[in-house]
């Protein structure tokens, strides 16, 4: 479904993505794992065409998004849904209008049909009855679910999730995991999940890609990753502070990190 080839993205001196090659299979859940600053969000932004990489291609259904013209890109985007790290709900619209927004903009569906669709989507994420609330009135887990309802309102073929469970309590995390899994199994939606939550990743992933400062250091199924002999992978999935991925960096790294934040 998506094929990334030789992708390079730099911000000034920081190489956020270093010549990446990877594939995201149709109707599968692929999880991109990595610590913060490893380039996960950056990769998503290149794959959705939000930013232009310095080099490389992103093939979406065979079409290169990077060299595509605006019209084709927008056409492809209608097949994409995205759940943002901060949910990115429109703060001036209530929940109903937030979810109805893409429908109103892209289709000429009658108002009562819109109502039905929105209610259905809210039902799917378990939030029926919140239609008239404003985003600011919801908890973190709820805004994520509304964001998800909005992401699926146009029935996308692929959904990108940027850290869907970060900052959530274990139960909300479980709810989101189940939703991702359900959307994938019931509606056959291809999913690309960016995460640093190992447990949730093992629960949902068909394939895992581990990113480490712009490089892919491992990829494979859950079992392959669990049984990996690579020390960096082991360290990451066991969450150990000591290991080949250094906690104490050189002074320069430390500085870079400080200045980046």
């Amino acid at each position, binding site marked *: 479904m998506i094929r990334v080839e030789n992708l390079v993205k730099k911000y000034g001196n920081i190489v956020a993505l270093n010549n990446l090659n990877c594939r995201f299979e149709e109707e599968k859940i692929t999880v991109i794992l990595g610590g913060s600053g490893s380039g996960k969000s950056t990769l998503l932004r290149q794959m959705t065409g*939000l930013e232009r990489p310095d080099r490389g291609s992103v093939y979406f259904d065979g079409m290169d998004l990077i060299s595509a013209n605006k019209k084709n890109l927008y056409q492809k*985007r209608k097949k994409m849904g995205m759940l943002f790290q901060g949910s*990115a709900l*429109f*703060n001036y619209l209530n929940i109903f209008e937030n979810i109805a927004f*893409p429908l109103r903009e*892209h289709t000429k569906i009658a108002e009562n049909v819109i109502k039905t669709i929105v209610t259905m989507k809210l039902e799917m994420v378990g939030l029926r009855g919140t239609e008239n609330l404003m985003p600011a009135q919801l908890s973190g887990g709820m805004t994520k679910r509304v964001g998800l309802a909005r992401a699926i309102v146009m029935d996308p073929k692929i959904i*990108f999730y940027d850290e869907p469970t970060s900052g959530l309590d274990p139960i909300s995390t479980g709810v989101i995991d189940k939703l991702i899994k359900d959307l994938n199994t019931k509606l056959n939606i291809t999913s690309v999940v960016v995460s640093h939550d190992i447990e949730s990743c093992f629960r949902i992933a068909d394939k895992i890609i581990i990113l480490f400062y712009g490089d892919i250091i491992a990829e494979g199924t859950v079992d392959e990753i669990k049984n990996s002999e690579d020390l960096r992978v082991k360290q990451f999935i066991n969450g150990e502070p000591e290991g080949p991925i250094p906690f104490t960096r050189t*002074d320069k790294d430390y500085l870079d990190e*400080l200045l980046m934040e």
Partner: protein
Amino acid sequence: MSQPPQFTITTATNITTLCLSGRLDTKGVAAVWQRVTIAVGRAKSPTLIINLGEVDYMDMAGAAFISHLKNLDHNGTAKERSQVNGLKSAYTPLLVLAEKTDIKPAITNHLSPHSFVEQTGKNVADFLYDAKTFISFIGELIFAMVSSLKAPKNIRWGETFLMAERAGVDALPIVGLISFIVGLVMAFQAAIPMKMFGAELYVANLIGIATVRELGPLMTAIVLAGRSASAFAAEIGTMKINEEIDALTVMGMDPVKFLILPRVIALTMVTPLLTIFANLVGILGGAVVILSLGYPLVAYYNQVVNFVTWQDFTGGIIKCFVFGVLIAATGCIRGYQTQMGSSAVGQSTTRAVVSSIVLIAVFDGIFSIMYYYMGV
């Protein structure tokens, strides 16, 4: 309650001994830092022995203090010659940490002072870069405007009228107030010298021409820069840091068409209208003064109407279209350029107001020159 730490200094043949006692915490260190530093500096001996046997508590501040003392420059030999005695073993890790983190001038790296020439060059480069983004953005905007004018159905009129209401209708009171006062004050100030020549009535000519050609458009533009450019920058900046703009884009909607075009079109429509209003109210302000000098209103009216030409009026209004585009575009660009972080929106808002006022001033000058050569 707690006593500040005590210290004694003894100097004997090239060896200074500093004994510290008490609590070396943030408060205690702050109390003695300067005095101890001066005393140790004055001793001028190459070897410093710091005796900490009497210290009953030490925290990071204390450790930093000790490390600072050790590194004081005693003829450049301090490091090897200083030594610390009697520190309780519980506190040694603190001192080790303090010494490790000491003297890394690195963090100031990016902020390090540049020479004047370097700084000026950097400022010029930044300015040129900014100007480049600005111009290419305006170009993109004009392109979007023209292509949407070909298909006016695609313009989001609902949003546009909402913006027009917020930027235009809601600004009527403040534009009215400022124009009225400027008209009034100007007439009043002009009336005094004019009266000496018995030419008070010509105040009407002055007010009429100045308001219609310059003050009406300028007052309106500056009010809009303060009200709307800032509002646009804040709205768009907040959406930017909230990833809402990315969300729009991924949903297949063009942020330029969605957020920027309605604002630019709205402001381009309301600026001339507000200016007409400002012109009327400003001239009215002048009328109050003339009336109070005992002239009938009709005299003032005739004076203004006979003196101010349609050309003056149109010249002023045409400027306003340009001001409208500039103000809206500046607000939107600054909002769009918002970086991450919570203070970023505030910065963008400020930059929006400053940049648009600068642009208004520059373009007003350009128009004056143009009109002069065109004989308008």
